[in-house]
């Protein structure tokens, strides 16, 4: 494994007493070993960028079902994109003509479309539907945690108080914008921070407009300074922002495309080495109830402008990631709180609907189209909606499992609804699925065996079993809690694994080896006698 590629992930504090099995608890109560074992690194350098299309995107005019074109014509003649203008992906499917960039990504194997994503009993309220998507609940359940927040909380127990650490120096998740998405809400606090502009003087609610030159303004400045100092990650964000440089020339000028502006910041921070796992960006305006196309040319208008921005922003971002050399580390995904109605309205727009296409992008996506074109009724009525093919929580589960190597247990916590099964096919290319490794026989449960021989001089074998593909960290510590070796660090497949540990130049004494595999962890002692 390439050590450089990995960022850290901490051991759940709740397992701490287990670590001390066989040791004098008092003696180790405040020892460095606890520090070391509870903050030791476990890594992925993979990044997820979530793009929220706020307002409810009209999926049928975004990913256009050419094989259902006559039904489409019957349903929405006033906003219909002429079939000869559709950007073809397959014989059955094409993209809105404003999305030439995404068509290129598709042709280059960097785009994946999941058709007709929704959930049972869909809600038509913007706010409620957004909350359902972000909290990953059933439609009738009011969720308290976001899917990404609940996922991160499992890997970073004690956030925010216990962080940042040397091993976890950077924010876990960043919202580019002013308000952190509820999708990052953890059980206690939000796992994310909002950053409008990483180069700004203050990262504060309300922004950094210069206060008035009044006594009140004087105190605002003062309190901003204090508030800024309470933000533990100010330094690391600023450092990354100053080190990171955007290399793509495809970004539009600032202020032209808000999504591109946000993704540009994300790329800048990635280039600057920020070890943040999740970024959330958004673009509003998709609530196209009226005049979503121009009267004279349905390929133009408000919706076309939005899709053009979406396509242009992602294209520039991907180009930048390639130039930065980070393209293989970043997976992007779009979603909206709902799609829109099959039948357009008389105002030249579309009303709130249900299922929508989810688009993933990145050099590692398992490019293509999952699912069939939406099934449209032969004689659609105003209340008809697109039947769901895939529950959005299955999409989430796939992302967390395939991209981050999340365990089934982690998925169940992150996705609180009834559906936590991933899609049947992977959303990233087979070579890059987290947790696919050496394979072998299939153990029923995790286990870490006693090393053999023990005592040893100078080498010994450590054997462990993984029932599923998972990220693995196997470290060796001395009795002072200092890590002396990292034997395994990265995704491994299900099966029995053996690692040889050579004590080399280490002195005689007691050592600990600790296995962390997903949410499982175990520590054992071994004795080196020279």
């Amino acid at each position, binding site marked *: 494994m390439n050590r450089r590629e990995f960022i850290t992930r901490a051991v759940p504090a709740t397992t701490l007493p287990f670590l001390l099995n066989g040791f004098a608890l008092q003696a180790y109560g405040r020892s460095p070993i606890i520090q070391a074992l509870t903050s030791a690194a476990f890594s992925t350098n993979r990044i997820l960028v979530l793009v929220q299309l*706020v307002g409810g995107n009209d999926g049928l005019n975004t990913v256009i079902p050419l094989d259902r074109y006559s039904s489409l014509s019957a349903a929405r003649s006033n906003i219909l994109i002429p079939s000869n203008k559709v950007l073809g992906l397959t014989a059955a499917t094409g993209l809105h003509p404003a999305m030439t960039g995404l068509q290129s990504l598709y042709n280059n194997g960097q785009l994946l479309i999941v058709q007709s994503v929704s959930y049972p009993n869909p809600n038509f309220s913007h706010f409620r539907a957004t909350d359902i998507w972000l909290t990953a609940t059933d439609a009738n359940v009011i969720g308290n945690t976001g899917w990404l927040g609940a996922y991160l909380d499992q890997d970073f127990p004690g956030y925010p108080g216990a962080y940042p650490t040397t091993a976890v120096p950077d924010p876990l998740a960043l919202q580019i914008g002013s*308000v952190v998405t509820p999708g990052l809400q953890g059980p206690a606090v939000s796992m994310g921070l909002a950053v409008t502009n990483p180069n700004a003087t203050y990262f504060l609610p309300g922004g950094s*407009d210069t206060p008035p030159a009044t006594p009140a303004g004087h105190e605002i400045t*003062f309190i901003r300074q*204090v508030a800024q100092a*309470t933000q533990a990650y100010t330094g690391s964000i600023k450092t990354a922002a100053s080190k990171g440089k955007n290399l793509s020339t495809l970004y539009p000028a600032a202020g032209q495309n808000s999504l591109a502006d946000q993704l540009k910041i994300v790329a800048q921070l990635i280039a600057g080495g920020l070890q943040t796992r999740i970024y959330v960006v958004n673009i509003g305006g998709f*609530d196209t109830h009226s005049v979503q196309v121009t009267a004279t040319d349905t390929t133009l208008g408000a919706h076309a402008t939005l899709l053009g921005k979406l396509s242009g922003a992602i294209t520039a971002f991907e180009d930048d990631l390639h130039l930065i050399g980070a393209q293989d580390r970043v997976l992007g995904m779009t979603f909206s709180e709902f799609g829109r109605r099959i039948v357009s309205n008389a105002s030249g727009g579309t009303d709130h609907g249900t299922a929508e296409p989810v688009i993933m992008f990145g050099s590692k996506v398992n490019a293509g189209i999952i699912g069939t074109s939406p099934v449209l009724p032969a004689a659609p009525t105003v209340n008809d909606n697109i039947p769901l093919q895939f529950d959005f929580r299955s999409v989430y589960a796939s992302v967390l499992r395939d991209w981050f190597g999340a365990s089934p247990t982690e998925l169940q916590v992150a996705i609180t609804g009834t559906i936590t099964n991933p899609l049947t096919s992977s959303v990233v290319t087979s070579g890059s699925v987290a947790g696919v490794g050496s394979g072998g026989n299939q153990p029923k449960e995790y286990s870490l065996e006693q090393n053999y021989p023990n005592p040893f001089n100078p080498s010994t074998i450590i054997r462990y079993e993984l029932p599923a593909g998972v990220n693995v960290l196997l470290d060796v510590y001395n009795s002072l809690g200092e890590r002396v070796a990292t034997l395994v660090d990265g995704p491994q497949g299900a099966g029995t694994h053996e690692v040889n540990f050579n004590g080399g130049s280490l002195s005689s004494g007691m050592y600990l080896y600790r296995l962390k595999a997903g949410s499982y962890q175990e520590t054992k002692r071994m004795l080196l006698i020279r």
Partner: protein
Amino acid sequence: MRRRDSLARIATAVLAPDGEDGLQEVKTQDAGASPFANKSTPSVARTTAGLEPYAGPWTLTQMYHLLRRTTFGPSKAHVDTLKSTGTAGSAVDLLLAPQADEPTQPLATSTSELVPGGSTWVNAIYSNPAINPTSARIISLKAWWIGLILNQGLSIREKLTLFWTDHFVTQISTVNDPRYSYRYNALLRHNVLGNFRDIANAVTQDGAMLIYLNGTNNVKTGPDENYGRELQELFTIGKGPLAGPGDYTNYTEADVKAAAHVLTGWRKYQNADTTVGTQTGYFDSTRHDTTDKTFSARYNNTVIKGGTDGQAELTAMLTMIFSQTDPDGVNKVARFISRKFYRWFVYYVIDADAEANVITPMANLISSNNFNVLPALSTLLKSAHFFDPVNMGCFIKSPIDFVAALIRQFSIPIIATDVAKQYAAWYALATQSAAMDQDIGEPPNVAGWQAYYQNPEYYELWINSDTLTKRRNLSDALVGSGYTTSGGKLQIDPIAFVKTLSNPADPNVIVNEASQFLFAVTPTAAQTAFLKETLLPGLPDYEWTTEWAAYMADPTNAAKLSAVKGKLQALLALMMEMPEYQLS
């Protein structure tokens, strides 16, 4: 309390140069000043407006300003009342109107106070040697006081009660018998708009003060100078610039000694745990130095005739102190207390214009009204200076102000049918404020809370990275899942809050009216846009209207409630995290 005890926490004693109030020496490390706090007082341009009556518009801006400064956070009902007053002057009259004495007394919440739960302990003896009720009674007293602040109607009284307890400082825990502290608290509350000299007279012979500044140990055979010093330095005439050895311009070390001799013989009833009704002071002529007391040239060599009438000597001494004038003819005591009022109600910087146009005429009003403070306070609060925009929003809320305003502005309900729970909730708020560095009834030393005198930081002492985080945590909890106390969960109902606005179906109304309600400064256009985006991310206005209408049509529908409530919670949480929310 020994002065040397009170200053035990001093980390850096800055004895010179003395400032205008002579308080700069009390600089404590545990004040925890932020590294960003003032290094010198700000020189931002202010106003030349003085005490002439404010004649500008009487709008929500002025109403909120008046209520923020004179009460603990404007509530909707109080603003509505002020709207009907018509002028700033009549609104101030309403706030300064005489109040009947507070009818309630602190109640026991259990048998720990040594009286039945639900009854008051303020006169109850320490009847069980096995149980010391002091701690339980202190908790009850502080809770009750917080309750008064939370429930204060349209009156300046509680803001002034806190002022006077920060001026004539005693510490509840130092007095260590809450019966005295209750009586002291009630004394000051009764006199908030009364006669300054009379208050000084009453305080001097009050049991709590006699304990706190050792008056009760002040006997002719060994005079204790503690109270005689603080009476002059901190309570009345104030310490002026050091003019020579032991000469503080307004008084000298010799005057400290002379005052101590005047005050010999005042004592509290010795045994706090015997009978009821004795938690006050009295004069014991057998312990009094009956010789004549001669004061220094700073008091024109005044001689106070000795004898066995302690009250007569005290009156004579207060008359002497309260009649001193500066070379410009302004009464020294009146000027001293005017400055203190100014820093409590207006701003901490007193520049030359404020001194000439506000402090001096205020002081003259106080002295010309024989030290009745009402006319001066009324004039200040009705003045063009007070309502000048430059004096709005420049105040940093004290922790008590911050905590109380959260409860009052959002009308957060507190259980009133169960004394134990009600007091538990009130006390939880007292502990929150204490954690933010303001423990009600416990100023850090005899000089009071540093925020009102410590040059150059002043109010900025309230805010450091620790206290700001605590403030944010509390507002986040209240607006989110609730702040759980043993007296029940305290929680903001954002739906109820927006229903008090003129049109909760309009997102612009919500943002604008909530901003005006919660912020003492006008948000910038970018901030308003940011708040709107928080409420309604990426959506047109009518979508809020639609969602709100859907909820109103079906208010018991959990999904519809959640849809609008979540957005309102996000909006309010962020507003209260903004630095602007800390201002008053």
